């Protein structure tokens, strides 16, 4: 330890420029790795989530990008007719989110309502922290059973009621909290799998046929945009497309499991491959610069190293000192990435960004910790490369020559 302190104070800190540059280079490498790993992890989490919905025989609807939406031509009769047809001939998973309601809570967050029907709820398999599953058998004038996110459960624990003045059915409704979702329960966007909305400040609202029939046109129309038709066929969705076209004047595409997987392979895997390649190239360049920086350090500190070797310092001890020194630099960088991430997560709380607010140790969620682990692995690899290169360089120079310099 004494020799290490000596090396730090008398050798490394005397050439602080080289240490700072190494910290900056490692910081870039760590940040690039962290960002890429988190994007890839988040995409695969989204992919896993869609597996619940994207099963054989299921078709996910999507409004054709070329279809012109004229709200003047769409009326409640049209949407009612579509839902009557859906209820008569199909099983479907209904999900709509993003409706903000005024519900006071201790964290003063906006509260989002996520509407879903029983089929969607069963497919998604929500994990609960407390309470019981949603029940879809209720009357509109009764208390409606709901699930709330962990953040909202502080104000509205299981058994409490929530009064909503402006609901999708145009009447005040009373909600009864039946359960609390596991912390950081999320929903991935079907068309951007790496993008998530968290349910910590959301209310999961059960939707039954009666509710849809009484709901306003916004909810009915939004529900059709991402509707999933279950256990049907190409002919089945073709008939539904015609009904949608006739009643709403909109062209919908319905994508089968195979089409969705093809889309994933073509679009997401391609993007992930590009991202991985860019990351690899950048890391290779940064590693090369770091090795150059390390060799510059050897060039400038050779005299100090060789004098110490002359007076009895072994190469194995020098290697150990280098590894500890590099470990310290890596630790500083990890701390920077960690603080930056924690600050970003905390920023969502400050901005009251309810859909991105998360809970976790020091504000970091599982995905962040995994990405940090990848960063640690990368630092170990870069560290081994740099330290071994430095030692090989030092060993190639005779001690006597080094001392003479």
């Amino acid at each position, binding site marked *: 330890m004494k020799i290490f302190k000596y090396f730090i104070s008398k050798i490394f800190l005397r*050439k602080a*420029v*080289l240490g*700072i*540059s190494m910290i*900056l*280079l490692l*910081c*870039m490498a760590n940040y690039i790795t962290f*960002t*890429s790993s988190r*994007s890839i992890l988040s*995409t695969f989490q989204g992919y896993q989530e869609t597996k619940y919905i994207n099963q054989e025989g299921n078709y996910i609807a999507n409004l054709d990008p070329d279809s012109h939406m004229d709200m003047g031509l769409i009326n409640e009769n049209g949407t009612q007719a579509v839902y009557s047809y859906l209820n008569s001939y199909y099983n479907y998973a209904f999900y709509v989110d993003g409706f903000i309601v005024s519900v006071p809570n201790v964290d003063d967050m906006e509260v989002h309502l996520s509407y879903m029907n029983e089929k969607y709820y069963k497919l998604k398999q929500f994990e609960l922290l407390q309470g019981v599953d949603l029940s879809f058998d209720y009357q509109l004038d009764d208390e409606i059973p709901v699930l709330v996110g962990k953040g909202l459960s502080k104000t509205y624990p299981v058994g409490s009621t929530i009064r909503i003045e402006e609901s999708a059915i145009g009447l005040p409704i009373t909600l009864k909290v039946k359960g609390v979702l596991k912390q950081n329960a999320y929903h991935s966007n079907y*068309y*951007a*799998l*790496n*993008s998530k909305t968290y349910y910590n400040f959301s209310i999961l609202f059960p939707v039954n046929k009666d509710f849809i029939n009484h709901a306003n046109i916004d909810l009915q129309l939004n529900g059709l945009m991402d509707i999933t038709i279950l256990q049907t066929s190409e002919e089945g969705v073709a008939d539904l497309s015609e009904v949608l076209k006739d009643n709403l004047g909109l062209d919908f595409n319905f994508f089968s499991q195979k089409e969705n997987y093809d889309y994933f392979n073509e*679009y*997401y895997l*391609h*993007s*992930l491959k*590009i*991202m991985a390649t860019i990351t690899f190239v950048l890391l290779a*360049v940064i590693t090369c*610069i770091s090795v150059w*920086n390390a060799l*510059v350090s050897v*060039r*400038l500190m050779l005299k100090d190293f060789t004098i110490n070797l002359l007076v009895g310092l072994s190469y194995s001890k020098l290697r150990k000192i280098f590894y500890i020194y590099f470990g310290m630099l890596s630790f500083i960088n990890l701390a920077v990435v960690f603080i930056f991430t924690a600050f970003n997560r905390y920023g969502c709380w400050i901005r009251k960004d309810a859909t991105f607010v998360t809970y976790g140790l020091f504000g970091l969620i599982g995905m962040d910790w995994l990405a940090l682990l990848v960063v640690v692995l990368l630092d170990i690899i870069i560290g081994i490369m740099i330290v071994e290169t430095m030692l090989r360089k030092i060993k190639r120079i005779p001690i006597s020559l080094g001392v003479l310099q």
Partner: protein
Amino acid sequence: MKKSLFRPADILELSAVYILCFSLNFAFDYVKTIDLDSYILKSYFRPFLEYQLLIVILFTFIVVVFHYQMLCRKKAEVFCRILVGDTAFHITIRYAMDCLLVLMFVYLLSTLVNVYWNFNLISNLHLVAIFITYILISAWQVRKYENF
């Protein structure tokens, strides 16, 4: 070049670090021009593009490392030159001129690349200003070696 502190390897090294900095800036400008239809790639590049200036400026620290190690290594040579009749002033001027020549050469190269890709020609100018500042600071350090 005869009286220069620079050896061919040093010139190559300095050119390489300048090229790396200009290339990084060029890469950012290039990414901005790509019409990305992939949300993943857009969200991947967004944090980097937001901090482009900061990242590029921090990256220029490798030029500081070059100047620093160059001057440390040439300490004895500067002193010896002064011993045999050269002046610290002339050594400083020559050092600054050599650095500026390499910088001008790399800047011209980067300008040609920018012209070829129809990029903004002044997008690299801030880098030139930063590098000139580094050169002036390091040239000032050369004068200090008068008293070895």
